[in-house]
């Protein structure tokens, strides 16, 4: 058992979308849907501004809401903690798309649901996901949370602060945002925390 996880250092990320384009080619993601996108948000008034550059994708939750709602078992959690899809079991009911709080899932034109799988084909070979490999700001760390020496564990220990997306939903994301630029944490998440 292992728990593959990712951390993104928002202090380093410049939102350039290299990860998104690398993902597009690596995983042959059709034009019109995305496994990975960048949300750049600015708050404040001139000249006191904060801009947060935030790549988003499947967070591979510890408690993924998309998995239990799947009627065929095509959505499942692998032994290494990657939330995965077996396309040949998918009926395209979209229940998992409805359940995902992060807009991470899409319907592939071939008729099955798809999303980020942490490039499992690379991870299985001991390589890093394509987005991690190509990132010019080196803002992404990947590895096994259960291994204290993994890149992701080291990054988490070294971070000034760690934030999760929509923590109020109790999904337990295994994608962490480090060193958010705004004092209160992730931009646009204030409402999520209070609810």
């Amino acid at each position, binding site marked *: 058992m292992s728990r593959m996880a990712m951390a993104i250092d928002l202090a380093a990320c410049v939102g350039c*979308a290299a990860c998104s384009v690398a993902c597009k080619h690596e995983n042959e993601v059709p*034009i019109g849907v995305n496994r990975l996108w960048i949300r750049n948000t600015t708050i404040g008034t001139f000249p006191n501004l904060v801009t947060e550059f935030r790549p988003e994708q499947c967070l591979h939750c510890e408690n993924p809401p998309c998995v239990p709602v799947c009627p065929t078992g095509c959505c499942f959690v692998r032994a290494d903690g990657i939330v995965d899809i077996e396309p040949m079991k998918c009926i395209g009911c979209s229940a998992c798309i409805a359940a995902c709080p992060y807009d991470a899932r899409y319907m592939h034109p*071939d008729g099955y649901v798809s999303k980020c799988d942490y490039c499992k*084909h690379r991870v299985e070979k001991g390589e890093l996901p394509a987005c991690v490999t190509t990132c*010019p700001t080196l803002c992404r760390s990947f590895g096994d949370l259960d291994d204290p020496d993994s890149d992701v564990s080291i990054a988490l220990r070294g971070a000034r602060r760690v934030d999760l997306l929509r923590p109020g939903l109790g999904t337990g994301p295994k994608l962490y945002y480090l060193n958010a630029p705004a004092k209160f944490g992730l931009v646009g998440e204030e409402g999520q925390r209070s609810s």
Partner: protein
Amino acid sequence: MKLGRRDFIKLSCATVGALAVGSTAKAQLFPGGFPNPFRPPPGKWFEGDVTTSYSYCEMCFWKCGMKVSVEGGKVRKVDGYVENPKSRGMLCPRGQAAPATTYDPDRLKKPLIRVEGSERGAGQYREASWDEAFDYIAEKMFAIRDEHGTESVAFMGHGTGDEWFASYLPGAWGTPNAAKPSVSLCTAPRETASVYTFGRGIAGHEQIDWDETDYIVLIGHHIGEDTHNTQLQQFAQALTRGAELVVVDPRFSVAAAKAKDWLPIKPATDTALLLAWINVLIEEEIYDAEYVEKYTLGFEQLAEHAAQYTPEWAEAITEIPADTIRRIAREMAAHAPRAVLPVGRHVVWYGHDDSHRMRALYFVNILLGNYGMPGGYFLCDAPIVDTFPAPELPLAPAAGGCGSGPVEVGDSPFRPSVDRGKFFGTATSVQEFIEPMITGEPYPVKGLFAYGVNLFHSIPMVERTKEALRHLDLYVAIDILPMEHVMWADVILPECTFLERHDDLNLVAHKTPFIQARFPAVEPMYDSKPAWWIARELGIKLGLGEYFPWEDIEEYLDRRLSSIGSSLEAMAEQGTIVRRGRPYIADWERLNRNPFDTPSGQLEFYSERFAEAGLDPLPVFIDPMEGPSGYYRLLYGRSPVHTFARTHNNAVLMEMESENSVWLNTREAERLGVSHLEYVYLENQDGVVEGPVRANVTERIRQDCVYITHGYGHKAPLMKLANGRGASDTHLQTRYDLDPYSGGAGLRNNWVRIVPGAPDPQHKPIAQLVRERSQA
């Protein structure tokens, strides 16, 4: 794609709207037609038989080393590789999107010849064989030569292949009129200033010792938006390491978002700020006196000159408080020599003041004692590889890259290039080639080759350029895509993309100089050909065969590589050969050599050579031009997912960002009644209108300027993804101010007003266009 909170809801709402008419639902209802009942999802490319080859990227000029993965005869993925000092294993979004350019169905496919009697720009062409196209070109070139001389054919080039079309072929043919937009429309002032200060160009890639620096001051330098891969990596690593960052910019740029201090300077006043920093460093005696004493010339003159530029003087001009100016100067000095003011790349901003600004920037660095020191500017030279043995060219080609100097005619019988005498410096000035095409002064230019240069999206005064093209006897465009300016040419030659071709070796000046090679990953698609082949075949038709004594590029490359004890075969296995550099002054002193190639052998604050030419020997601040009232200064910059005007038909990159928007300060927008994401027109001071373009109502910019990213606003119907999206800054640049030192064209002296209420152009989603294209 830019969206506000409201519009995000609108986005969902638009989907509901689409549903009502059933279009989206239909697409969902029968996705991909009727598939085979038991067909599993198609296999993934990485499960197949994947082969890799080395190349270096051509999606921008940074040219990162890359590995290309091919499966099933198709390029599937590109990656950086760690052994390459440029990519270091990583690639930016544009590099990653390279396969989508190769597989762009809108590419030029066959040589085309303009239909006899049709207007230039009417886009009427007939397909031709390469042989026919070359014959056509040769005949016209001979006619021009016989009537006006060889100098009357001009060559413009950009991209790796410009070695052939802006250097080698012009040299063989015998014309000094060869230029690259990467000089006078980009780097010229920094190069001239550098040569006359350091005795060395900046050239290649900005030689900033990011890995060692502790304090960074960026002036209008958009790291993160201009995703220069290596620079971005090192910049991000420096920040992660704890280096402090100050950003001077009228706009809250991506870099500014990472800064501890953002100084929202009034546009066009940067030189005043730099002069004030020189003043503080000297007045407070916090400059590196030892370094200045040992390596510089003219400090006394500078000190005397800079006394007038007090922070209070600068505050009135720049709108940056004098206290802040002092504080930043003291912080710089405290971190010196590991404090650096990096030189930017595109520095042709205001023309008259650009070389002064660059020199002032260098002077601050010298006063911090960082030039040739760890944490400042390192010194670098390109590795040397012998050329292929061939007869000496009638005119020696200029050096490649951004630091390209003019072709010196010397004692030869050739006339000097048409831009000589218009400015002092050591560059070619591509925009100065246009006027002679119309006026015939100083002598007629009747032929033009445009290799990879987008004439209508780089050279200002687009209407003048079109007028010049109408005056030509021959206009040849060599390109990959049917760009607007390409569809004006008499002959269009389709080049293959970089993934389909060999190119010449890339010799890179770097902290560790290196040599990288490009190998074709797949065969050229359609009837497209590589630049080296086009140049050689054309050369032979022009009777210049003796200058192309190699049979093919493999022979050429192998011979060159043999001069350094390598071979093409060895290069195919390693991609890059890395050499040791001499990055610091100490490395040169150990060899008893002086890195500063100035007449004095010193870093020159005071330039005798400028003084002799009647120019200012020390940098001065010149009051910027002011625009008409009600107009905003038009600033422009880069999107991280696009290069120039080149990548706007790349499906993947267009999905990332499919149109640009004009940044407008919130308070100005309120005053004008413009709402966020509303479509507006931009009208410049000469009545030229661009748009419709979305208004990006934002706090991230001052009230006296607006900003758009460069490269959008294509007017090229054959480029189905790019056509008609956003606004073009170049089309709004109907004026420029020539830098008397470098010949650079200051482009930021154009003003626009916002005209609200433009119609929504109803752009189709990129996904829909891609679908339509693939069905066509």
